[in-house]
């Protein structure tokens, strides 16, 4: 009991980095997944290890049957469908904000699909790459309606709950400095416990990405008791994360995201993907793998697009299924031709 659980995992991961035989970095079917051959390692293992949140409504949360569901989980399933042709060949690993990067670095997971903000320092010094932004977000505050606060500026002197090891924590400190708002932090690692502390009234406000606030608010017994303040204090591009130095695997992750986007743009859905095989538009034909041979260029099957879309549907469908029920609008996540930021490069 000398260390906290997460520190234990970090220690184990650090040890794994120390003892992984150097030869594994070159061996093709390395079980621990050296950086240069994640795809082969995943194929040899037979499942994709995908790091998700510890339980955030809409993004990754077990349902009443214990099956994990959510926006982030769909990305894990889409990747498994792309690699194996079977969306169920995925092992979901729940990771806290503090252990997620170590879990990825040490090979415990192959990809992070877990509300992770892409920043310069994470991209460089953590040994990670962020192939695709699948959710554009920003940081906000949630308070109890009974508090009577209407704007973040009014939070001077407040106690604010925040998860450690997040960009949220640093943004909060930055914002407090520039807005000259003093606050006392309460820093708890596990999401459930920090939400519990906020609900119990330990903090006046809870801060995280607005999508996370919406998810937390929707999960409360009386959501109207809580108010998300209109202020957005940061840019939070939530991206999929992989280990640095494996361009091939990063390509698969990146283009699986673009596949979901392009499918929405061209009107390919989970239901009509089979009938789209006869669609005359050339780009649609390339997406469904009838022409172009794009799948093999990624090291995947020709029909990977069909498999993925049959398993999870297009971006709009995934969004509608998981995020709209908890009150998150498309906003910046709309397609580029609908006033949003989501833009897929050409499938050519």
């Amino acid at each position, binding site marked *: 009991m000398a260390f906290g659980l997460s520190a234990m995992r970090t220690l184990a991961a650090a040890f794994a980095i120390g003892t992984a035989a150097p030869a594994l970095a070159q061996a093709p079917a390395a079980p621990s997944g050296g950086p240069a051959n994640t795809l082969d390692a995943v194929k040899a293992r037979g499942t994709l290890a995908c790091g998700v949140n510890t339980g955030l409504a809409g993004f990754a949360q077990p349902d009443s049957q214990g099956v994990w569901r959510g926006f982030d989980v769909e990305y894990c399933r889409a990747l498994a469908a792309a690699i194996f042709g079977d969306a169920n060949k995925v092992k979901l690993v729940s990771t806290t904000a503090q*252990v997620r990067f170590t879990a990825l670095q040490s090979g415990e997971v192959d990809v992070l699909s877990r509300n992770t903000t892409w920043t310069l320092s994470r991209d460089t010094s953590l040994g990670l790459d962020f192939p695709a932004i699948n959710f554009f977000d920003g940081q906000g505050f949630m308070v109890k309606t009974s508090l009577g606060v209407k704007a973040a500026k009014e939070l001077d002197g407040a106690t604010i709950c925040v998860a450690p090891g997040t960009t949220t*924590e640093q943004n909060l400190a930055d914002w407090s400095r520039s807005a000259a708002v003093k606050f006392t932090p309460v*820093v708890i690692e596990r999401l459930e416990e920090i939400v519990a502390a906020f609900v119990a009234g330990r903090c006046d406000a809870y801060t995280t990405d607005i999508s996370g606030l919406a998810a937390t608010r929707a999960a409360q017994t009386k959501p109207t008791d809580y108010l998300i303040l209109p202020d957005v204090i940061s840019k939070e591009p939530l991206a999929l994360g992989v280990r640095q130095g494996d361009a091939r695997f990063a390509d698969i992750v990146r283009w699986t995201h673009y596949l979901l986007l392009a499918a929405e743009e061209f009107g390919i859905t989970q239901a009509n993907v089979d009938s789209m095989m006869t669609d005359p538009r050339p780009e649609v034909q390339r997406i469904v793998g009838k022409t172009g041979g794009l799948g093999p260029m990624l090291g995947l099957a020709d029909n990977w697009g069909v498999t993925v879309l049959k398993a999870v549907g297009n971006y709009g469908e995934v969004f509608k299924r998981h995020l709209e029920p908890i009150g998150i609008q498309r906003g910046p996540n709309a397609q580029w031709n609908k006033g949003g930021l989501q833009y897929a490069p050409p499938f050519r």
Partner: protein
Amino acid sequence: MPESVTDPRQLRLPPKRPIRLSWSDERVRGIVWQVVVVGIVGSLFWWLWSNTAHNLAVRRIATGFEFLRREAGLPIAEHLVDYNPTDTYFRALLVGFLNTLKVAVVGIVLATILGTLIGIARLSRNWLLAKLAAVYVEVIRDLPLLLQLLFWYALLQGLPGPRQAMNPAEGVFLSNRGLKLPWFEWTDAHSFALLAFVLGAIATWLYARQATAKRLLDGRKRPAWPFALLAMLAAPIGIWAVMGAPFTPDIPKLRGFNFQGGLNISPEYFALLIGLVTYTAGFVAEIVRAGIQAVPHGQWEAAQALGLHRGQVLRQIVLPQALRVIIPPMTSQYLNITKNSSLAVAIGYQDIVSIANTTLNQTGQAIEGIAIIMLVYLTISLSISLFMNWYNGRIALVER
């Protein structure tokens, strides 16, 4: 005179033999084996080290302790030294180290007091008291500490909010934001008075020691209390008065969301402290009980035959002897308190583990972060061990 009595056989050394380069020579064999073992251990460490360095390089993970000088940017609620998020990681980690010390030191003192009381209560002739103490020990020892910490934290969160805070006395507020106590503005005069008190306490202790030594010679009682009163009370108050007797009360007031001013004990710190103290006191109680029962019953009877009453027997005769049995296992409990304080991460108290975890998460340098945590615990634990071993040596039975 123990020095003069020496067994002459101990002085006789075995005859010297020249070293032969042969496997049958015991010394040659010894040297060979030592070289082999040191070589194996050394190369194992070298392999671990170079392998780690190689893997970190392959994974393009930054290494080294350069990050300690970068701006931390993480907010910390409780700090004993000045801190704000623009300070460096080094300072943030220092704050975490001091927070760990704060809970460990206070926890050790309180657990010792509570544990000793419960241990003595378990031996009480009062049936109810003895049984209550026994139930306490059995219940507390058998529940996982993490569970107890979460229990205390949830209990403290169940307190009313700051606007409905309990107000048992003037300026004292108990709410889910913690315990607020009235305090006063600390000035130099207070620091000097505190210094005078500490010096006075040391002087009193020296005086009492000398008084006892003199009493052993002439049998005359020399009460220490007048001296103590003068050195520990009159002198500090005098210094404080001479420096202008500054006193500005700092009463907590509800302003905005929270109480401003006064002394604050946060629910996180309080939950951690109370959890550690009650848990460890259960073990300390058993150690104290075992120590007291290890003193032969004849000592009680002999002391009572001299006319000492029960309290005197316990304080003057039994406890000093029991200490010899108590101290070594007590050291382990003190080390446990220190290490268990790392469970703070579960309830949001920002100790060294919490801050180092955040640091390693932000910088990605897990190995350096874990090394810092290990260094901190090793330092604290070795210090406790050294002190307790010194104390143990002091009270150990002096054989004559």
